């Protein structure tokens, strides 16, 4: 991955925020999301953490607009997100799903080029700037040279990085990612997250791994049973107390040379 000039050109990051987001599904007595608000500041990495079933993926999809909450409003800057035209939304916010599986024989280049759909005319062929954006995105995730490989021949980690390249090729102001480090080996987990942090985009990322969250997120939102348990700067939110109440673990949280470190010692005693 190229270490320099990561910042996406010509895109001004923008704040994305949600207010009073409530999502219910039939057959579940309690809402999946219950009056959750959050604010992801422009150009910062905001992590969504919480145990399984706490509603983090649902919150991400409510922000993305792929789930319509029963109540609440998502804003992009000061504009209601839902009021933007469909294609403009796709040019502003890119989403990377947790499991992007496919049965197709698409080549890597084709997958990344999907990210240019919201920029191109419906019938128009790809323009030079589309090809350039795709090449840049592939370079950023370190997959240059794989353009002709078929999707089915890629490993789980390679698929994840190609999807990240597709999202970057959208040249969005906001990146929403649902557990992007799944299937990645440790080296690529760190590479992907440091890359995301270096884009200068507004990033909202669902993370499972608390150590990664501590290392790469500027801010954290901790969800617990569909509600916000805590939200704020990472070092304020990620405390031994939060980890015990929400995650049920005993943990040691310390700072080393300005970086926050989380060490899980074991399950909290009942």
């Amino acid at each position: 991955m190229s270490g320099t000039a990561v910042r996406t050109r010509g895109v001004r990051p923008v704040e994305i925020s949600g207010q009073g987001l409530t999502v219910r599904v039939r057959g579940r007595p309690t809402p999946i999301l219950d009056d959750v608000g959050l604010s992801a500041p422009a150009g910062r990495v905001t992590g969504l953490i919480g145990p399984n079933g706490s509603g983090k993926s649902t919150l991400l999809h409510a922000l993305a607009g792929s789930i319509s909450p029963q109540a609440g409003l998502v804003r992009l800057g000061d504009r209601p997100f839902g009021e933007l035209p469909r294609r403009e939304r796709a040019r502003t916010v890119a989403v990377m799903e947790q499991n992007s599986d496919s049965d197709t024989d698409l080549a890597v280049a084709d997958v990344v080029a999907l990210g240019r759909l919201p920029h191109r005319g419906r019938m128009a062929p790809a323009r030079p700037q589309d090809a350039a954006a795709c090449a840049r995105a592939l370079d950023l995730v370190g997959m240059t040279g794989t353009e002709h490989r078929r999707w089915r021949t890629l490993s789980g980690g390679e698929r994840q990085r190609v999807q990240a390249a597709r999202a970057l090729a959208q040249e969005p102001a906001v990146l929403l990612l649902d557990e992007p480090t799944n299937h990645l080996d440790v080296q690529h987990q760190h590479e992907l997250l440091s890359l995301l942090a270096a884009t200068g985009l507004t990033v909202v990322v669902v993370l499972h791994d608390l150590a990664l969250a501590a290392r790469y997120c500027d801010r954290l939102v901790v969800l617990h049973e569909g509600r916000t348990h805590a939200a704020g700067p990472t070092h304020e939110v990620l405390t031994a107390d939060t980890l015990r109440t929400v995650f049920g673990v005993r943990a040691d949280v310390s700072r080393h040379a300005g970086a926050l470190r989380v060490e899980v010692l074991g399950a909290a005693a009942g």
Partner: protein
Amino acid sequence: MTMSSSRSAELARPVAATVGRTVGTALGTALVLTAVAFAAVGTGGGDITWSETARSLGAHLGLPVAPLPSLVDSVVWELRAPRALLAAVAGAGLATCGVVLQAVTRNALAEPYLLGISSGASTGAVLVLVMGLGSGAVSLAGGALAGGLAAFGLVLLLLGRSAAGADRLVLTGVVVGQLFAALTSLVLLGWGDADAARGLTYWLTGSLAAARWPSVLLCATVVGVALLALRLIASDLDAFAFGARTAASLGVPVAAVRAVALVTTAGVTAVVVSSVGAIGFVGLIVPHAVRALVGPLHHRLLPASAVGGAVFLMLADTVARTALAPKQLPAGVVTALLGVPAFLLILHRRERR
């Protein structure tokens, strides 16, 4: 900045070369289609020579050639020519339907016959025919459309709102297809006249024996309009590769694209079934083979599959007419004999992943 702009220039393909290649592809395609169509028209019993075939076609197309005796001429122009062209148009339509259904269901085994749509269209057409509701090719196609939509609707209803797995989709389609095949038999044998038994083969396996010019024109119009509509959503169909949610996040109007896909496939299947009966597997074999040649992107896959379907069904019907001559097989028998191994092959490859 400078680096990336020089890279852009490098990536820009010369426009002239692209245009030249497009024109070349179009000419080559037209040549292949014409050659296969001529071979289909010229092949068959009755000792009609190739030059007689050419003379008959030439005379009707306004070329300055001596016309043939009317008996020979009518065999070529009234029977064989519409039959070959109907095979071409129906094959193009069915192959295109397969491509679209495979894209929106994300299932390589989806096609109008296996999803029961063709069987439903047969039932609808037979009801119109036997109950004497209206008359002519258009009301027949209308009945087929209603039946096709009913079958499609039933499949979707049985699948429920949950995202169905590939296997469940095909199983449900096959079961619904069996139901409508039984209904077709019931209507034909219970209320039809003496010709019903022969009609049964036609509506259940499909045959091009009854092809005449009016149904060629009707089919060609509907398939042509459908291809134009589908060209508009070709890039949207690409985006469905990773599911509807990812497509939506790329700015694709998912509901509208699904509606266009549903209406065009049901419409094309209906008009094809009302003209040639339920010919199966074209929508499975052709897209699969064409994908190997031109790749999975729909702006190439759709037109290439239309051409492939046209060639495939013209050849399949020629084999059906001549393999056991003077006996004639329904074209659907030939497509099924080729389609079942193709189905098993695709299934095997999917499971190995």
